[in-house]
């Protein structure tokens, strides 16, 4: 039995040996499991953009792109398997969309010399490119998010939040714990009281947490949630009549899936964002024309225009721009992972580039450098309008508190460098 299985596996793997050439982009997606509702739109957006590039432009710089999708189910073990399975086909960049898998892959990918882009998730201190040579997290990270949320509260309260009570409701995992350090520093700086309330995976049951919130009556609630935890939390907040405009989620807690179940109760809920919302961009005409009408849309094709679909598009757009930059630096269309890394490190996103790609005013302009793999940390706020059923951007992209975050990034990356015997530097 075992022997037979092994022989069959050998046959299967041999037959599945991938064709080389093309620009290979692995997508470690999750279309199944407890986080599928959030994983599907992102995966669709990511896939559709590369389909669009192939259909409209014939790839990037004349080189066709190839997407290799691998299902992780948000499980780190499957993530490792997917990484090993796709590694052999010379991939350019990984985007696992899971903080757990990101932590898993950081050392492996550094050793293998393949770049990773954890856009708005993953290890925040990867912003320090002198230590994390292959890891990028532009345009914004969790600590920018935490600071952005506090800045928004400062704006609303007119600059003084001394003595205010802020509660953080977080997914009890590496992901949810990320902002705590920054919020603690910021609470010292601005003098607000911080309460931490963890919610265990998957977060379907939050009665006790929201009972505590009802008892303590915080002025603001921040949320670092994912999957079903988001919609449950928003429903519970509506149930205890918590003022929704004082409830601010990170960008992973701000999709349509999260607010729709609470109906009118979710009206006014706020979420941070680092890219545009809605489908009012020229890129969507091209997607309709070249991808949807051609019957090549990924998945069921019903996610177009949602927040997370937009994020998938944005992630793919940034990857494509980095490829163009790399092609320019190295003078070759068929780049490899090391050249891709150089392209990502030299990436500069300007208004003109975004407009040319069909994304005018979509995200903040930023510039990546060896010292700053995380961009400049510009964060905006969007608000949910339940009657119109859409997200509205309510603020410009504003820079986070770089003074506090810079110190924390330096401290955490130095600890990582010491642990792993890395000599920080740009070579």
């Amino acid at each position: 039995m075992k022997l037979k299985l092994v022989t069959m596996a050998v046959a299967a793997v041999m037959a599945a040996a991938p064709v080389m050439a093309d620009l290979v982009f692995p997508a470690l997606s999750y279309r199944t499991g407890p986080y599928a509702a959030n994983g599907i739109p992102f995966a669709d957006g990511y896939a559709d953009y590369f389909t669009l590039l192939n259909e409209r432009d014939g790839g990037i710089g004349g080189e066709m792109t190839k997407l290799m999708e691998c299902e992780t189910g948000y499980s780190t073990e499957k993530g490792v398997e997917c990484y090993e399975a796709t590694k052999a086909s010379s991939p350019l960049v990984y985007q696992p969309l899971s903080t757990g898998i990101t932590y898993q892959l950081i050392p492996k990918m550094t050793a293998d010399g393949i770049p990773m882009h954890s856009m708005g998730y993953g290890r925040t201190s990867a912003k320090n490119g002198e230590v994390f040579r292959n890891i990028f997290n532009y345009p914004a990270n969790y600590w920018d998010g935490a600071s952005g949320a506090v800045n928004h509260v400062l704006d609303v309260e007119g600059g003084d939040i001394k003595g205010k009570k802020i509660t953080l409701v977080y997914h009890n995992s590496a992901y949810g714990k990320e902002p705590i350090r920054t919020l603690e520093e910021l609470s010292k700086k601005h003098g607000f009281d911080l309460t931490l309330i963890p919610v265990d995976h998957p977060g379907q049951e939050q009665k006790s947490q929201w009972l505590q919130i009802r008892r303590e009556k915080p002025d603001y609630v921040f949320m670092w949630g994912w999957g079903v935890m988001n919609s449950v939390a928003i429903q519970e907040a509506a149930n205890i009549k918590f003022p929704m405009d004082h409830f601010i989620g990170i960008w992973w807690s701000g999709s349509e899936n999260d607010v729709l179940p609470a109906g009118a109760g979710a009206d006014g809920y706020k979420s941070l964002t680092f890219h545009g919302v809605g489908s009012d961009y020229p890129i969507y005409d091209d997607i309709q024309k070249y991808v949807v009408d051609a019957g090549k849309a990924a998945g069921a094709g019903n996610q177009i225009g949602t927040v997370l679909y937009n994020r998938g598009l944005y992630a793919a757009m940034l990857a494509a721009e980095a490829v163009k930059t790399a092609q320019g630096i190295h003078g070759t269309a068929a780049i490899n992972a090391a050249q891709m890394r150089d392209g990502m490190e030299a990436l500069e996103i300007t208004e003109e580039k975004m407009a040319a790609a069909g994304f005018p005013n979509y995200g903040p302009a930023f510039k990546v450098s060896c010292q700053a793999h995380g961009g400049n940390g510009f964060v905006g706020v969007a608000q949910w309008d339940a009657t119109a059923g859409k997200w509205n951007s309510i603020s410009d992209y504003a820079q986070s508190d770089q003074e506090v975050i810079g110190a924390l990034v330096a401290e955490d990356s130095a600890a990582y460098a010491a642990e792993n015997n890395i000599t920080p530097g740009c070579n």
Partner: protein
Amino acid sequence: MLYREAGDYKTSYSKDNQTFPIKFDRVAYYLLLVVAFCVVPFFINGYWANAVLVPFLIYVIAALGLNILIGYCGQLSLGTGGFMAVGAYSAYKLMTSFPDVSIIIHILIAGVITALVGMLFGLPSLRIKGFYLAVATLASQFFLIWLFNRVPWFYNYSASGTINAPERTVFGVNVTGPNVEAWAQYMFCLVFVVTCAWLVRNLTRGTLGRSWMAIRDMDIAAEIIGVNPLKAKLSAFGLSSFFIGIAGALLFTVYLGAVEGGEAFGISKSFLVLFMVIIGGLGSILGSFLGAAFMVLMPVLLKNILVGNMAWPTDVAAHFEFVIVGALIVAFLIFEPHGLAQLWRLAKEKLRLWPFPH
């Protein structure tokens, strides 16, 4: 014809009692060892090590451990994930506190620590059995994960709560960390698996194993003929947890490298190992190997066939994996409730008579 015992005479008790009394089995066993130790390391690559063989070997150890408890001693446990977490976190604390000590010793001590924790949670087994014990061990699962998430000391106060395995070497060769070679990972786990399997086999056919089986078959009768239930049950919990702890430590250090307690060692892990034991065959060493192979290799195999060869969408393939594996589990339990090991036993019976069955 080929597979027979006729003419295979034994002239001493020790020969008669050996693990593989039939010569053909013995030869196959040694051949397998030679292939595993001397051939596979030269051909293994990163994919085969990380996606197939290393997880398989590690889960074999976990299944062996749980088989002691459920298959040999009859104590139902749902706390495997929690005990694996104890192994992983102890290995992490030891590795970071005593960086100069060999990782082999750390993993063994992690096993011992898990054994102590297992015995502690095994205490209720003296009073309760069956489903009630299962629920009590389920509580240990949740308690342990909660503890590792709650107390920052266990993850060295890192901001994210994840633990990362530092780089460690055995005889100058990396076995953990990002720069590890596939063959080194594989060999390291293989040595542990072979040692553990040899230990479990010999434990289960000695006095201790017989006292476990007596307790399993009828605890009151066992007590009357002089088996001490305290000793038998606690030793089963202790030894079972020892192996599960080693499996957890290896899973963290060699295989995953970075672990979040709740994600890697959740309740689903407990069920996974339980399925391995049940599908492989309760009270069988071979069953632990077959069960682990089934649960680890089957999804990978299905994925390669469905996505790689037949180019199905990944989500449809992932759903079908669940359907197919689930259907196979149900089918096995209906047609062969004693697991894959029993299938092998029946096949052997048939082979002995082949080609002249009566």
